[in-house]
């Protein structure tokens, strides 16, 4: 491995780790127990998931939309994340053979 590759990997690792501990360290200065901070933290999960899913689904087509519905439906019905992911992937593959 050449030095430039080694340096690049080290810097990339540092940037990546800084993102991971950055929010954690900032919270030292925030009152975690304040109702508003709790409400903020409580709102993060659905906000992140919505932000991840919506653009991807909009960019996708019928196969992705059906896969999304199958994943959500199977998870609601069975409570199993593996079953839901497997069913959704199968559904997406099947729909794509029809397109």
């Amino acid at each position, binding site marked *: *491995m050449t030095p*430039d*590759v080694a*340096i*690049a*990997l*080290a*810097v*990339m*690792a540092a*940037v*990546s780790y800084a*993102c*991971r*501990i*950055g*929010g*954690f360290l900032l*919270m030292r200065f925030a009152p*975690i*127990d304040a109702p*508003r901070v*709790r*409400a*903020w*933290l*409580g*709102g*993060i*999960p*659905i*906000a*992140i*998931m*919505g*932000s*991840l*899913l*919506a*653009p*991807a689904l*909009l960019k*996708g087509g019928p*196969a992705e939309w059906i*896969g*999304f519905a199958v*994943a*959500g439906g199977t*998870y609601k019905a069975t409570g199993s*994340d*593996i079953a*839901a*992911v497997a069913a*959704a*992937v199968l*559904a*997406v*593959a099947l729909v*794509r*053979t029809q397109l």
Partner: protein
Amino acid sequence: MAGQANPFSWRGLGAGFRGASAPAAGGFVFGIAFGLLADQVGLALSTAVLMSMLVYSGTAQFVSLQAWGDPIPLAAICGAILATNARYVLLGASVRPWFHGVGRLKTYASLFLLSEGNWAPALRERLEGRPDAAYMLGCGLAMYASWVSATALGHALGQLIPDPRAFGIDFVLLAFFTVVAAGVWRGRRDIAPLVAAVAVALAVGRLAPGHWYILAGGLAGSLVAALKVDRDA
């Protein structure tokens, strides 16, 4: 919950390791895809595997591959990693209460492996009344092993897999995010944060390159949740 120390046990570590099967399987498929692509871009096996071990972020690594060249455009790559991984700042902030009373080494080792893949199952575990902080680390270790070994396997496989899309394999991660969204859904009070997050994510996704839309949508949605605290409390 603050003021009370969280447990950090071998049992929680094992439970997390076992609970990671779905995200670890998804990560494995993506790891193979990353290894394949790294091979095509011309990265040595050692470089690809080290990148997976050190950066440990699928989207950031894929973006880095796209920019990779000689000389290496390090500033552009770091900018891309920052844009992609800025969302971890939010995740990191949200786990602060989980590690109250847990030792520094354990905490910062756990944070090294922080991603949506182990954060979401650990969150679900806490919501179900099992606040063992080691769960996130256990889950992360399983995903880490899966990601790193899949990178090596993908690099070795070269171009043997004809078309991953035909098998729906590219949908694994989205399917997993869908399951997580269904799991964290808290009912009516999540409607406004979700609508705000989706609207902002779509708008920012159209205007800004990279993955800023995830951070923007996450911030917008969670701030809406914070603003309506008086009505929900």
